[in-house]
């Protein structure tokens, strides 16, 4: 029988007034299981040690054991908040190696779903970020519940399209799995209009709120140099003054057919990242509208009538496919050996690379800013740890 030791640990204050505090892995503001070991001097953070790996699920090894037809549904579990984008990167890599054509209609459907997914992901980000700053028992919860309400509408659209609400398996090598049902386009337009209007409400609610401004402006500044050195991508990079978006830089899946702007802010603080995402909401909705207008007739897959999961074979070769996800560059490095399963697969998660900026930015800020900065980075730990 063991006895619990009741001797007290004497705190060592000799020569140091620093307090080591664990934020996470279980913490109300952690967007998943992230552990930050903070060194505090009073309220000020002087050092941060980021610990990740609590959600590692061997995704890359798993991909070697699953066929090209099976893995897309699993790929959606890497970034479960924007599940469409990881599937997209995976099938795009397989299509590049196999030189598989994707019909125009399938390309447009991919654009519609991934842009709707971006809006849904940004809505969740806005809600949880305000929740971090405003508290679950405060104004943050109000914004959060509003955002969830709108995200629900998008998930309803996905549900009527795919049958699933969170993890879809909608993309497959050579096209998409389902065509849009009757009346879906009309419902989609209504939802898009509604969200467009609601985004304006949120923007007014937040930007006319001085407390929100003092919490975000000048907080967590990522300079352009730091952004480029660390290799962050997505809204973070654009918030630091770099106009780089893969949809424009290396257009894929017919993105060149649509008109949209790439928002760029130069301040590099939390507010700049917020502004970038607020514009991205509108731009994504704009792309969805255009894609619905121009949606061509035709097949939705170049490889119809799949009889068995092993039927899709990809010839020998390797490639790196990348797309612009909601959080930045989602990349998939794939080596095919001619069989029905990949030989090796490697993910480049946007959240993982974006998270690397935290230790450079957080020191010097107050404890309350840590959650604001972490929220503005918008990490999804499924994608960080994979």
């Amino acid at each position, binding site marked *: 029988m063991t006895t619990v030791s009741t001797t007290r640990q004497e705190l060592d204050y000799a020569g140091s007034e620093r307090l080591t505090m664990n934020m996470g892995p279980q913490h*109300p503001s952690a967007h998943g299981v992230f552990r930050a070991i903070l060194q505090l001097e009073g309220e000020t953070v002087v050092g941060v040690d980021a610990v990740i790996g609590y959600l590692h699920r061997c995704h890359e090894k798993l991909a070697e054991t699953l066929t090209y037809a099976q893995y897309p549904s699993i790929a959606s579990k890497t970034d479960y908040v924007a599940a469409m984008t990881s599937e997209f990167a995976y099938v795009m890599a397989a299509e590049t190696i196999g030189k598989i054509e994707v019909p125009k209609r399938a390309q447009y459907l991919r654009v519609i779903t991934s842009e709707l997914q971006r809006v849904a992901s940004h809505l969740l980000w806005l809600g949880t970020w305000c929740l971090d700053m*405003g508290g679950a028992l405060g104004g943050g919860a109000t914004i959060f519940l509003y955002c969830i309400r709108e995200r629900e509408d998008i998930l309803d659209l996905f549900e009527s399209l795919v049958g699933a609400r969170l993890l879809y398996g909608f993309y497959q090598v050579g096209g998409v799995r389902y065509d849009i049902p009757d009346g879906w386009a009309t419902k989609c337009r209504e939802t898009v209009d509604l969200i467009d209007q609601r985004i304006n409400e949120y923007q007014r609610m937040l930007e006319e*709120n001085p407390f929100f401004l003092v919490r975000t402006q000048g907080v967590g500044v990522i300079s352009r140099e730091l952004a480029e050195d660390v290799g962050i991508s997505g809204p973070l990079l654009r918030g630091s003054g770099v106009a780089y978006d893969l949809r424009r830089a290396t257009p894929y899946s017919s993105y060149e057919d649509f008109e949209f702007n790439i928002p760029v802010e130069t301040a590099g603080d939390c507010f700049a990242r917020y502004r970038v995402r607020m514009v991205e909401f509108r731009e994504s909705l704009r792309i969805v509208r255009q894609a619905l207008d121009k949606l061509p007739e035709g097949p939705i897959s170049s490889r119809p009538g799949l009889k068995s999961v092993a039927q899709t074979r990809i010839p020998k070769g390797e490639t790196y496919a990348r797309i612009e996800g909601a959080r930045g560059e989602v990349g998939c490095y794939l080596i095919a050996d001619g069989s029905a399963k990949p030989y090796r697969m490697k993910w480049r998660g946007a959240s993982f690379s974006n998270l690397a900026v935290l230790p450079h930015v957080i020191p010097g800020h107050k404890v309350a800013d840590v959650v604001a900065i972490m929220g503005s980075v918008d990490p999804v730990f499924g994608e960080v740890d994979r």
Partner: protein
Amino acid sequence: MMEALTPFIAPFIVMNAVLGIVTYVTLLERKFAARMQSRIGPYRVGPHGLLQPIADAIKLMMKEDVVPTAADRPIYNLAPIVFVLPCMFIFATIPFAPGLGVADLNIGVLFFLAVSSMEIVGLFMAGWGSNNKYALLSAMRAVNQVISYDLPFIFAALTPVLLAGSLKLSDIAAAQAGGAWFIFYPVIGQLAFIAFIVSTVAAENRAPFDILEAESELVAGFRVEYSGMKFALIQLGEYAHIIGSSFLGALLFLGAWAGPGPEWLDPIWFLTKAMFMFLVVTWVRWSFVRIRVDQILALSWKALLPFTLLLLIATAIVVVWRGPGV
């Protein structure tokens, strides 16, 4: 016989009334917040969730009382009581209708302000005794904040005192008889009311000034290690403090029990006005994001404190010039 028992019966009635109000005010807040957030709120327990507070109370009583091994036991166990007592004492001086109250002291406002700032002792004991880093940080923030906001709170509350020319709460209420509420006093009344609302929100540790609870940073702040009835006592104390401040605000600015109708409606009018004050605070709570500790202190010392001090001096000049009363 009755005369001799009054000092015992009156506090008993008031305390139970306060407990009842506090219990049901949580439901009011949850319903109100739910409306703001386009939800329904508690609905399952009883018709429209009316029995929810009772279910919550039973749940809290049945919870296991966990004491951390490393906690400083005497301090840890005493803290909720030390916290809840001043929050209950503040009701002692409030007259709920003419002649209906525990003790209408001639220094009523002073007693209220002095006792309500005593809660910081229990709060710091809870933060220290838990031997938890989050709780300690929260207790540190609490001391910063409560000290910074008690001064503007006192200055804002003293404005009606100057206008009425008395510290006795029933005199202040009587000075506003006939609809001459101090909130309607030109310029000074409105400014003092705003300052009072801001500093009560801060002194009550409610969002956007709830940095000591700050669950996204400090999990639950000073009460992170408390469970069961000890947690319930802390919750009770907080809400009692809020209700007490709402009654004080309604008395100082909204004419206390003055209202149309027969005399027996007086306490109901007072309660309605206090609930109005409570809902204003709740409305603020559920619409703003929290601000940072340094920003809170800056707001108090650089803006609110000089502002309320100047307001108090201006009020004093006006009162000397025009004489007390509206």
